């Protein structure tokens, strides 16, 4: 057996605090903003939306 212990350096690039990919950062913050919007839009206490009301509207259409 030659492989009983690992040096952690082998797993991590020398410059380990690389910048985060820009595309990924946009995704990360974009999803948080979208989440705030969606929560507000579909919370009875904030927007008044409820699934029952949505159902009644679809029936009355």
């Amino acid at each position, binding site marked *: *057996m*030659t*492989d*009983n*212990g*690992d*040096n*952690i350096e*082998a*797993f*991590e*690039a*020398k410059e*380990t*605090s*690389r*910048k*985060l*990919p820009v*595309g*990924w950062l946009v*995704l*990360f913050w974009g*999803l*948080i903003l*979208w*989440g705030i919007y*969606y*929560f507000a839009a*579909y*919370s*009875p*206490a904030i927007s008044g*939306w*409820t*699934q029952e009301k949505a159902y009644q509207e679809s029936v009355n259409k």
Partner: protein
Amino acid sequence: MNDYQYDNQTVTGFIVSSIFWGVVGILLGLLISVQMWRPEFNFQPLFTFGRLRAVHTNGLAFGLGVGAIFGLSYYILMRLAKRPLLFPRLARVQLYLFNIGITLAAVTLLMGYTQSLEYAELEWPIDIAIVVLWVMFAVNVFGTVIKRREEQMYISLWYIIATVIAVAVLYIVNNLSIPAGLFKSYHLFAGVNSANVQWWYGHNAVGFVFTTPILAMFYYFLPKSTGIPIYSHRLSIIAFWSLVFAYLWTGAHHLVYTPLPDWIQTLGIVFTIFLIAPSWGSVVNGYYTVGSDWSKMNTNYLTKFFIMGITFYGLQTVQGPTQGLRIVSQLIHYTDWVPGHVHMGTMGWVTMTTAASIYYVIPKIYDTEIYSEKVANIHFWLVLIGQLIFSVTMWITGIQQGALWKAVNPDGSLKYTFVETLIKNYPFWQVRTLGGIIFTAGMLFFIYNIYMTMRRGKTPEMAKA
């Protein structure tokens, strides 16, 4: 280095056990896939779809999945801690108890002893055995990590620790029940509350059995087999913490449009969509790592397993969140779309990554080379094709079902009776069985390759440091 040999035998024991339960679970999967379109393949009372489905899911999640997780986590743990397991005999007892537990689980489920909670079907005596098993695992993980001979804990250890903690909390809370007999109990929680607790558990069982421990394997075996370090440590940190934070909020996406309060559903959907970001953090990290030298895809046969695995993880973690949205859930919830989704995760991501990790570990333990890269490549292509056939047919028929259920005539009445919508699935279900057969064939090549590698290599007792 006799200590390592003993522990390596335990690791091998878990791997072999998990492959055995994997074969049982996959073959049962084939049988129940046939039952979907040929009801006479139900053999009452023990071998009906209603009972076998739980044996299939539990056999694969706990037998194949958790068995492999125990074995491979111990392998990773020893190497990152630079020491053997702190309690080697405890791990060996855990291996025996694991096999007894899964056997009892399969038998009791066939007998109809079930809590009717998805992925928590097992009745209370077996739940207690599973908690004992998990405590054994936790004791060894924490003990070995605390007594480690390397200052830093690598990412894989973070994911293993998170798995140990989260599964313990989830499993204990959701299995709280009122015993009413030796193999009968009733959920401590009732109605809407029962549903909320169950899906908080159910979705996080996916998160902390099929995601975090598999990411631990991915972050360890990808750099090991390619020799390339992980692209960004910082990305690993952010992805880890945002993943373990966000996962626990998301269970309610299984309960969209049920009587569960609207705000819990909405919160569940919001965090489900957010999960795309941490999941893709690992996907991006994986791609950029191999991206520094794409020739590894050709020169190292394991690289393509890991890259294909993480690709399915990436697809899975976009598709899954999308399904949570109300507009999508309306159409595809309760249809075959969902099994299509689940099987992309389990057959594409989990099995692909786990098999590759086993390909890496077994030759190391047996001090030899893999028996045949060619057989591994055949395995790769068969499981890939089988899984794609499975998932794609299920997505098509799922959308079709959802649309037929909603279809109305010009005068406003429903266009199709339920049976009319059912029979349109049959051709797709037949193709699904075919996909399953191809996948199973691929797995047989895998097992053959592992078996021959073991035969060729030195036994763990003979291997010298």
